[in-house]
């Protein structure tokens, strides 16, 4: 009986894995099929002719690389800003005692009480007024506003787990407060920083709505809106190119995930227990 149960469970689990993995597989397969093979019936599971022409097309004849560069700059900058502010903010929320500390920490979460659709127009007007609309920087600001609260709470729970004695010891040993932070706190916080960075990077890499509203020039467009704008129109969808673009968009995230996934799960664990 236990064996039957085990087999049934395995079939169930693999069923879920397949359901999740099949679209990814189909994306990959479609991107290397020639155009005429796409809509053949019955469909071919593996391409009869392998081709990388869609990739070459994207790279050589479209703005794909500009969008890619924009996304890299945008996501990296957002990640750096969020991690820098989040780390220092979490440090002050944990180590310093000041009036309104807890209220401040909760107030930060208020951003999540409002749907982002509500915030988007005010934010757009604000950015237009200060002359930042249509720039990559405007998206960095926008993404920071909604990535930072979560990052702050995640880092705060990590920071709270670092014994205060460690910092005191460094101070007595001759370090300045900043020196103690750098030498002792930061290395301890590394798992927290990595999972926060990964979270922020993924969020900025995949974001669509704000990018659509805040940026409408090709020079500043990130991948999400750029690719949609370029390949999806009311009359036609360039399926092969779209799939090739999707594969190239996914690669950086897959690589990052593969290396850092253990940190990520640990990070979500910490957030779950204390946050």
């Amino acid at each position, binding site marked *: 009986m236990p064996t039957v149960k085990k087999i049934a469970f395995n079939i169930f689990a693999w069923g879920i894995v397949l359901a999740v993995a099949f679209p990814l597989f189909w994306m990959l397969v479609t991107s290397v099929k020639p155009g005429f093979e796409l809509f053949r019936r019955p469909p071919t599971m593996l391409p009869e002719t392998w081709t990388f022409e869609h990739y070459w097309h994207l790279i050589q004849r479209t703005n794909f690389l500009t969008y890619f560069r924009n996304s890299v700059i945008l996501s990296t900058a957002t990640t750096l800003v969020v991690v820098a502010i989040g780390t220092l903010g979490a440090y002050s929320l944990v180590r310093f005692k000041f009036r309104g500390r807890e209220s401040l920490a909760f107030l930060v979460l208020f951003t999540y009480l409002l749907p982002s659709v509500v915030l988007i127009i005010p934010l757009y007007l604000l950015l237009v007024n200060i002359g930042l609309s249509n720039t990559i920087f405007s998206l960095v600001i926008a993404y920071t506003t909604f990535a930072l609260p979560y990052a702050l709470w995640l880092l705060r729970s990590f920071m709270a787990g670092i*014994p205060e*004695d*460690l910092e*005191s*010891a*460094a*101070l*007595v*040993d*001759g*370090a*300045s407060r900043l*020196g103690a932070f750098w*030498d*002792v706190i930061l*290395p*301890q916080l590394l798992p927290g920083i990595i999972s926060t960075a990964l979270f922020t990077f993924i969020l900025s890499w995949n974001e669509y709505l704000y990018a659509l509203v805040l940026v409408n020039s090709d020079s500043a467009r990130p991948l999400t809106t750029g690719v949609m704008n370029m390949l999806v129109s009311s009359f036609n969808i360039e399926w092969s190119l779209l799939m090739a673009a999707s594969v190239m968009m996914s690669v950086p995230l897959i690589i990052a995930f593969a290396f850092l996934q253990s940190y990520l799960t640990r990070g979500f664990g910490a957030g779950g227990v204390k946050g």
Partner: protein
Amino acid sequence: MAAVVFSKVRKEFGSFTAVQGLDLSIDEGEFVSLLGPSGCGKTTTLRMLAGLEFPTSGEISIGDRVVNDVAPGQRDIAMVFQSYALYPHMSVAQNIAYPLKKRGVASAERTAQVNATAELLQLTELLGRKPRQLSGGQQQRVALGRALVRDPKVFLLDEPLSNLDAKLRGYMRVELVELHRRLGRTMVYVTHDQLEAMTMSDRIAVMEGGELQQFAAPTEVYAAPANRFVASFIGTPGMTLMDGELSKAGASWTFKADGISLPVGPLGDNAAAGPACLGVRPEHVLIGEGPIKGIIQVVEKTGHENIVVLELSGGHRLTGRVPAPQSWNPGETVSLSFDADNAHVFGPGAKGPRLNRPTETNVTDMPSPVLQKALP
């Protein structure tokens, strides 16, 4: 010259006063313990000395320098924390070298000093390991090494032995005393364990409720406690304390409680007839003969001696200590008396002051402290 001076030091956290008006002067090369129950302000006092807390008012000096506004790293102190506070991402060698590195000691010199310290503490084999790969006792030695390597003016130790098992603690006590003798440096040691304080210190500062209760040599703290709190806190098993009345007839004083009438030795000028408290150490309860009757409640056998808990007719409980061969069964009625020369008299209240005349105390009459060196 005094190595450390607290002068009217006060520390408040919001509306809570952790230390109130502390005056304490520690001599050069002295081993001083700050002893008291948890929440008595001893750790706050040590942290103020380290520069990790700032006094609300008053002055703290190390050597001839007032250090109120001096950063912890500039105070020429080293500290061992209760949790050891070893840097988890650094090896043992890096941990010990860290204070030197922060002071700009050159790399070659640093290595030489780390090696010398490691040899002193038998850590040479462990230099390449990370703290999590060490046992509690080894971590403790690394923490000590990190403090020793700098040769500071004052060592601060915050309950460094409390995380060790009993056997290792006994061993480390002796190690620390030997280390202190060898280095001749001033050491300030925080503990709630009176055995540690009694066995290691030159002088003990007993604290309670943020106030210094007594600052004296261990023998004196034991034999002539300054007030009722110190009397009840020091000594295992504790001193029996009995509330009663003090009366005077001519030049002699008598203490009365529950049908007991005991002449007590000449008292100081601060004594007055009225409510008072009698304190008797277990070894000064003489069981077997005497005018007082008591019923044996419990006999605790520790091997070399027996601890006897008795109840008097008035309901007072008292504890006696007798050599091992003497024993009684619970329920037995025995005669007993007190060694009046060694009875302590205190004023009323939880911190009632000592009323005995200072010279009347026999300071030598104290059980020798347990100092055994056994390898862990």
